């Protein structure tokens, strides 16, 4: 092996020392701990999300009113065909729906004893709210109302509702003709499903439960669509505000919609105040079972949710095979 001249060897040595010094200093700019901790970087998909759901412990009660107003009629001056309390526990991300049969014979403030559905005619949604508050001792935070046409439009705006129709329906009056099973209902069919009572064993009680079923379906669908495309929430919120009438401000609608996306729709209790049918002054009315009504109301007042023990049997039970 040929040796380098002494001067060159010395120069190379000096250069190596210089390189080592420089290299050490450069190396010092990257502490060993951090460098070795450096990840390969995001080769697995990562996800970050913030959804501003309400998280208070106080339950939120929304009275949902379905007016029987036809397309050319004002929704607030007709009768309430459907009345439901939507109760949300934001902290627990749970909810309950309680239907009040439209023919329930109750005390209407300033009017006297009458069917609850007439409260809308006598005093608009505010009187329906007062009536329900008096009946249940629950303070409604908001109300929201639709009519036939606006309900149809709302469903169509979100491209229909996917509903698990629990049993076959064949009712000429409401034009509800359905086979059981999961299906997407357009506005027209969703309205028919919501109106059908003639081929249900408990009539209006069963219909009220089915209306709640539509609400649960809507909740499940909102959540599913939001998870797939969060911007869909704007479509839902806008349709609700455009077609409905409500005491909710737009930002409150969005707050509730965000909160709704956190609720597990499969665990929403959907019940109807039970009662019996009676005749009062020639009127066929529903007399609510006061004991059950009180139990349910007190349970809802507690945390906005219903304990299993307080869930009454489904009015559609004979058809559900339960």
């Amino acid at each position, binding site marked *: 092996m040929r040796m380098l001249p002494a001067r060159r060897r010395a120069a190379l040595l000096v*250069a190596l020392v210089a390189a080592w010094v420089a290299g050490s200093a450069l190396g010092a700019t*990257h502490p060993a701990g951090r460098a070795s*901790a450096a990840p390969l970087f*995001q080769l697995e*998909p990562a996800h*970050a999300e*913030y959804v501003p759901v309400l998280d208070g412990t106080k339950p939120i009660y929304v009275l949902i009113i379905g007016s029987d107003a036809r397309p050319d009629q004002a929704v607030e001056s007709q009768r309430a065909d459907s009345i439901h309390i939507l109760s949300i526990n934001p902290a627990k991300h749970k909810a309950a729906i309680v239907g009040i049969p439209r023919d329930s014979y109750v005390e209407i403030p300033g009017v006297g004893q009458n069917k609850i559905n007439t409260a809308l005619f006598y005093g608009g949604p505010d009187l329906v709210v007062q009536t329900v508050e008096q009946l249940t001792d629950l303070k409604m935070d908001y109300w929201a109302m639709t009519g036939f046409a606006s309900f149809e439009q709302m469903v169509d705006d979100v491209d229909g509702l996917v509903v698990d129709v629990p049993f076959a329906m064949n009712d000429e009056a409401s034009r509800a003709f359905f086979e059981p099973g999961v299906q997407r209902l357009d506005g027209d069919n969703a309205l028919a499903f919501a109106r059908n009572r003639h081929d249900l064993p408990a009539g209006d009680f069963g219909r009220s439960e089915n209306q709640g079923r539509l609400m649960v379906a809507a909740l499940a669908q909102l959540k599913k669509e939001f998870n797939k495309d*969060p911007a869909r929430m*704007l479509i839902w919120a806008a349709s609700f505000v455009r077609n409905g009438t409500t005491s909710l401000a737009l930002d409150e609608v969005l707050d509730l919609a965000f909160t709704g996306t956190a609720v597990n729709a499969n665990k929403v209790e959907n019940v109807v105040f039970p009662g019996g049918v009676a005749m009062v002054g020639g009127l066929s009315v529903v007399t609510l079972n006061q004991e059950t009504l009180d139990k349910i109301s007190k349970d809802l007042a507690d945390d906005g949710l219903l304990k299993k023990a307080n869930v009454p049997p489904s009015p559609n039970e004979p058809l559900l095979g339960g």
Partner: protein
Amino acid sequence: MTPNRAQRGASKKRRVPLALLIVPVVLVAIGVAILLALRGGDGAIIGGGDEPPPPFDFIVKPATAILTAPDADEATLSANADEVAQEITPTIDDLYTNAFLDPSNWRHDDYEEVFAAFGPDAAATAEQSLETLTLGATAGDVFDTVEPGKSKLSYQVLFDPDGEPDTAVVSVIFRATAERKSGTYLAIVSEGEFFLGQIDGQEQPWTITAFDVTRDDHETHPPSASASTSASPSA
């Protein structure tokens, strides 16, 4: 042939001991090393800070107006939706520039500016999601450069019944190519939605109130010389 004066001079210089030539080089090398060490070392360029971020703008698609009043003038609100998009776009440009492109941020794990775009409630979660929403805390140890790719924004603007913009959802597809110190390349892909609202008391007119963002990076090849590194805004 007789050497001229310059050649003689050159010939004379070759006779200077090699060690004497190397000494200044060594001194300079040591000086540089000390300078870098004293600076605390972040791979910074000698004699100055980090280079500025590469120029970057999202491509902006026409905005969609979502109406809450049955009798709203759709054409007017569509135009207003585009105005809202123009108002918000600089915020999103800055957000992604600060999060992925500005070397003075990613080289030093300093992403504070990123979170200025978020409302108070969303910011806390955003800060916890730093590794997804930014190039990452240790990016300075891993990457040499980051160059933006073709990136897009599309807007949906919700108007209240009075025709005022209430909420905007901006859908983002951000792409960049990062060169690792090892010489390999990583395609950075950030995709998602940001909800923006107008919160009283906030410095910016529009603030992020909710978000849903996915990072799906993957190995890639060096960008071709003809590839564009900066998108241009377009209506």
